Structure formats: C-alpha cells, structure tokens
C-alpha cells in the first residue's frame, strides 16, 4: 500500500513540463496546460472557436507569461484577425509592435499556382523559422493547416512535409497549436492531422439543443499526463474563452461551523436556535405561493442587517417587484440596496444558456464578493436545460460557492403533481439544508406548513410548523396536535376557541355543583336540626311520660300506704312512716 503510494508520488514528480494557456479553466482540466515544446491539435466544426482559442493561447502567452508567439493564419488575413478579436480586448497590432507577436497570413490559391513537378514546403518552414527566431517565440499556432490541402494537390508530398513540419516544430522547442476542421464520420480532422499530432488532442464542439447553443470542449488525448476526460462547456464572451470544469474535482473544501441566522427567529429555533451553517447550501422548496421568495428575502434582509453583502439572482420577478412585495411583509430591502449591501440581478432564464448563466453568476460573485447568494428560483432554469444539465450547473455553482465560503439559498418550485419531493432539480442531495414549505389543505382553506427535510451536521426539529406570513413578517407557529390530528389555520384557531369554551363551561359546571353541594348540605343540616328538635321533643315527651309515670307511681304508692295505714288504723306506723320519710 505504502509502496504504491510512493510510486504514485513519483509519477507526479515526473510529469511532463507544461505550458499554461492562460485560458480560464483549460489549465485546470489539462493539469497545467498544453505539453511544453510539443504540438497540440485543436479540432472541431466550423465556428466552434478553434481560431479564437488558439489566438487566446498566443495572446495570453505574450501578455501574461512573457512568451512571444507566432500566429500563422491560413484562413484569415492578419488585419481581419486583428479586428475580429479587438472586441475581446486583444490588441494584436500593439503586440506586434512590441515584438511579442507575429502574425503571418499564408495565402494559397490553387488557381494561381501551377504544379510543375517535385516540390517541398521549405518556404513555409523558412517563414515559420524566421518568424520564430525574429521574436524568440515560444508558442506557435497554425490555423488551419489543412488549407494547404486545398491549395496544393500533391497529397504524398504534403503528408511527408507535414510530418517534417511537426518534427521541425519539436526541434524548435515551441509549444504549437494546430487547428483542424472536423472530418466526416469518426475522424477528428478532415485530413487526418491527428496521426501527426499525437501528444495532445482537444476537441471542440458546438451543439444547439432546444434552440440554445452550448460550446463544449473535450481533451481527447493527452499523452503522459492525467487530464479531465469529460466534456466541459465553455463560452466565449468579452473576456475571451472560459472553460468551466467542475471547479473542484476533489471534495476538499474548508468548512465553517459558524452559524448565521435565517432571519426568522422561530425558524432558527428549529435549528437548535442558531440558524444555518455559514458557507452551506440551503434549498427552500415548495409549491407555488408557499412563501419561498419571502423566506429568501427574509434571509437576505438578515444578512444585510449583519452588515454583510448579499447577492440576489431573480429569475422570475424583477427587483422592483420583489421590493414592493416584500414591503408588504415589513421587509425594507431598499435601504440595503442604498447601502450597497444588497444587489439584485434579474434575468430571464431563457436569456442565454445555462453555462452563460453560470459564468454571469461567477463573474458577479467574483466582483461583489458577497457573504450570501440567493437564487430564486432555480426551477426556471429547467426551461433552458435538462434536469441533468441544471444539476451539473448547480453542482459546479455549489462547489464554487463553498470554496469561497459563501452561503447560498436556492428556492425551487415543486409541482403539486410530483408525489415524491426528491426530484427538485436533483439538487436536494447536494444541499446541506433542505426546507420544505407545503400546503396543508383542510376545511376549505389552505395553510402553509414548513418542515426541515434535512440539515446536515446539526440537530433540527422534526416537527411540522405552521408558517404564517403577516404584515409583521414571517413566523412559525406550532401546529395544533389535537385529538382530531394535526390542525392548522382557522381549524387550529377554532379548536383553541373550542377549548376555551370548554374550560368556561367546565368552570361554570363546577361552580354550580359546588353550590348544589352547599345547598344540599344546608338542607341536610336543617333537616338534621329539625330531627334533632323532634328528637328532643320526643325525648322530652318520653321523659315527661316517664316522670308522670313516676309521680303517678309515687302518688299511687303513697295513696296505697295511706290507704293501708288507714285500713290498719295504725297511727304509730303511720307516724314512724312519716318520720322515716322525713
């Protein structure tokens, strides 16, 4: 294992020397540029940018790497060429005067030339050699060498001379570009130039799909070095050619654990109270009218409130529209624009191809250096490309933004008919955080529910919240989880009211029962009192009877005694009896 690793390292050390082209992105694909001191073939159909790419190679060499170059044009005249590329800011005349560049127009016309026997192309060699030596050129372009074939008829001589030409160029030690028209069928060039140039072959392509053209570049072969093998889109704009590789072929990005607020406190609380990670990518998706733009604007507002810059790319609404609409939810974005913290860039997606959009976004970001970028909505880009193209574009954009530590928020429209939400331009797997806003329809009304589908690297709420947009701003409300299920909107309010009524009723009922008890008690107590009284009277009655009985008994006893006494006539007994009684 370690042995293998060492071996690999050795190979990278022995990499063949390369000449940087200075063309944005091309050096990244080729791992440093074109093979130094060797010829490279650039082929492609007419109008795919061969001449421009080769000319830019020469101009960049002269201006950026201090390597003078010779441009031998078989097609265009020197002054034509100069005026053609003047719009790209290439001043060929001045470069020629500075001896940094030599333009040589080779004119061949079959009608003017009579072939009378054996010949060779030594004249071309002498011209080229002289041009190279006169300015010490390191770079040579032959555009388009194949024109020789239309001017001269002896193929055998031409092919032999071409082979000699490439040897000559290698001997001169110049890095050369030879351009060639694409041939029929599978051949790269019409005259089979690829058999002479074997070190590096770059194929350019210009395709129109759905009325939108995209230029593409592919390194067909590059001997002795690693290179990107994909087709890379490139475009030609006022700064020349930009090739757009997936900015980082390796996933070795710096990450930040700093958090930034979403601008909605209740949303932050769903992310453990802190918000998103800085430099992360956030996708807000939802059906139409669920408030995606409002969330995005809220985020932009928050970023600007923290004195950081924010870029807003609008693909649907004009900046003025957004400003006006956001005012209705208490977001004043105008002041941020005035402070230079917020910039809007609105364009119709169909304005140009995806790659053009990407480059436009690149350039603006490079210039503005924002802390956050918003794309609203990415769904509209579908109109100019297929899902896979949009995805590849967004991958590259996310890569680029993460490299720059810029937080990005996409909004995406998901259609009601789409059952699974996993297909939002296929970016849902790329983004770090995915918020889903959806309609919850019940009881004849529509409410917004927001939940977090995913959020990498942080604890987050798994609850569906009701998302409300009011003239105070945005906020999230806990949805009502009642016995009847999840309730939102007026149903939630109704349920709350119902509960309130219930409480009042209950309280009333309780108090009524209390009174009842009290009354019952009082009743019983009074009853008890009356019973008591009754009992007392009965007792009294009984006692009275008892006393009367006793009295009667006593009286009877006495009477009988007296009667007995009287009957006996015993006065003594009567006397003693009366004495003992005393």
């Amino acid at each position: 294992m370690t042995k293998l690793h060492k071996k690999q390292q050795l190979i990278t050390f022995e990499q063949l020397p390369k000449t940087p082209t200075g063309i944005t992105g091309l050096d990244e694909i080729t791992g440093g540029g074109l093979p130094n001191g060797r010829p490279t073939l650039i082929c492609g159909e007419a109008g795919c940018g061969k001449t421009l790419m080769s000319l830019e190679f020469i101009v960049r060499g002269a201006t950026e790497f201090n390597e003078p170059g010779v441009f031998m044009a078989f097609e265009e005249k020197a002054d034509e060429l100069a005026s053609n590329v003047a719009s790209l800011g290439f001043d060929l005349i001045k470069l020629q005067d500075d001896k940094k560049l030599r333009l040589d127009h080779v004119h061949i016309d079959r009608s003017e030339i009579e072939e009378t026997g054996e010949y060779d192309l030594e004249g071309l060699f002498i011209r080229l050699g002289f041009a190279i030596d006169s300015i010490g050129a390191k770079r040579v372009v032959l555009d388009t060498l194949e024109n020789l074939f239309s001017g001269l008829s002896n193929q055998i001589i031409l092919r032999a001379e071409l082979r000699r030409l490439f040897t000559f160029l290698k001997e001169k030690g110049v890095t050369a570009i030879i351009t060639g028209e694409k041939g029929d069928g599978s051949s790269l060039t019409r005259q089979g130039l690829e058999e002479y140039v074997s070190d590096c072959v770059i194929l350019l392509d210009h395709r129109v799909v759905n009325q939108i053209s995209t230029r593409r570049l592919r390194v067909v072969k590059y001997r002795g070095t690693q290179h990107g093998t994909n087709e890379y889109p490139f475009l030609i704009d006022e700064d020349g050619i930009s090739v757009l590789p997936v900015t980082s072929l390796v996933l070795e990005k710096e990450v930040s654990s700093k958090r930034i607020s979403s601008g909605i406190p209740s949303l932050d609380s769903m992310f453990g109270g802190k918000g998103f990670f800085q430099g992360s990518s956030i996708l807000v998706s939802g059906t139409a009218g669920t408030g995606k733009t409002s969330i995005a604007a809220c985020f932009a507002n928050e970023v600007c409130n923290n004195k950081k810059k924010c870029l807003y790319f609008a693909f649907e609404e004009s900046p003025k529209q957004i400003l006006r609409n956001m005012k209705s939810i208490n977001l004043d974005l105008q002041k941020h624009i005035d402070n230079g913290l917020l910039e809007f860039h609105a364009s119709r997606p169909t304005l140009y191809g995806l790659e053009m959009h990407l480059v436009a976004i690149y350039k603006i970001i490079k210039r503005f250096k924002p802390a956050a970028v918003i794309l609203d909505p990415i769904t509209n880009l579908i109109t100019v490309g297929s899902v896979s193209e949009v995805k590849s574009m967004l991958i590259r954009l996310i890569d680029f933004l993460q490299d720059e530590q810029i937080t990005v928020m996409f909004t995406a429209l998901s259609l009601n008919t789409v059952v699974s939400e996993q297909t939002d331009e296929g970016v849902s797997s790329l983004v770090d955080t995915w918020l889903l806003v959806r309609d919850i329809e019940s009881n004849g009304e529509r409410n917004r529910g927001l939940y977090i589908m995913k959020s990498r690297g942080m604890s987050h709420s798994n609850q569906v919240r009701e998302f409300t947009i009011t003239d105070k701003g945005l906020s999230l409300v806990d949805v009502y989880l009642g016995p009847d299920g999840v309730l939102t909107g007026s149903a939630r309010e109704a349920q709350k009211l119902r509960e309130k009524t219930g409480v009042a009723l209950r309280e009333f009922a309780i108090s009524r029962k209390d009174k009842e008890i009290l009354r019952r008690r009082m009743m019983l107590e009074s009853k008890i009192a009356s019973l008591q009284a009754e009992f007392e009277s009965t007792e009294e009655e009984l006692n009275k009877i008892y006393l009367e009985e006793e009295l009667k008994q006593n009286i009877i006893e006495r009477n009988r005694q007296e009667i007995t006494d009287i009957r006996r006539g015993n006065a003594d007994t009567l006397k003693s009896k009366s004495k003992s009684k005393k």
Partner: protein
Amino acid sequence: MTEQNQLPLDQGESQFFRLRLFVIGASPNSVRAIANLKIICEQYLKPNYELEIIDVYQQPLIAKEEQIIALPLLIKKSPGVERKLIGDMSNTDKVLKGLGILTES
C-alpha cells in the same frame, strides 16, 4: 505543332518575360528546377527574358512578402498577370502553360 505553339511569342516581339525563381540552396529540387528552367528559357523565350534566381535561405523576409510556401517557386512577373509555378519544372508542358506560352496542351 511548334509553329502554332510559338504563335504568341511571334506576335509580340515586345513581350518581355521577367521571371523570378526562388530556390533553397543546393537542394536536389532546386538544382533540378534551375536546370530545367534554363533549358525552357533558352528554348522558348530567348532572348526576351530575364531570370532572377533567389535563394530564400539568404533572404528569409522575402518568403513572407511573396507568400512563399512551396519551393522551388517560379513567379512570372510579366507579361500579363502574375503567375506562380511550383515544382522542379520537370513538366515542360505545365511550365509553358503556366507562363502563357502554350495555350493548348
């Protein structure tokens, strides 16, 4: 045949051929071209011609001015329009045609 062919020359005594032959040193093609051309000139043009032989190695700048690619190259400056002939001049018919001497092959 020769009579007809030489007709243009006979008609215009005043026609003066100014020819420039570009060669490269003493390469086989160049040597052959010089020899072949001299024979042709002596045979068909004498004495109304002027032949200048230029070694492009000595004057590389001229290669650009004269749009030289293939060598050896013969340029007919006059009479008539400028014509370019490349090769070792071994095909006499083609040389004469190129010079405008031979009108029909």
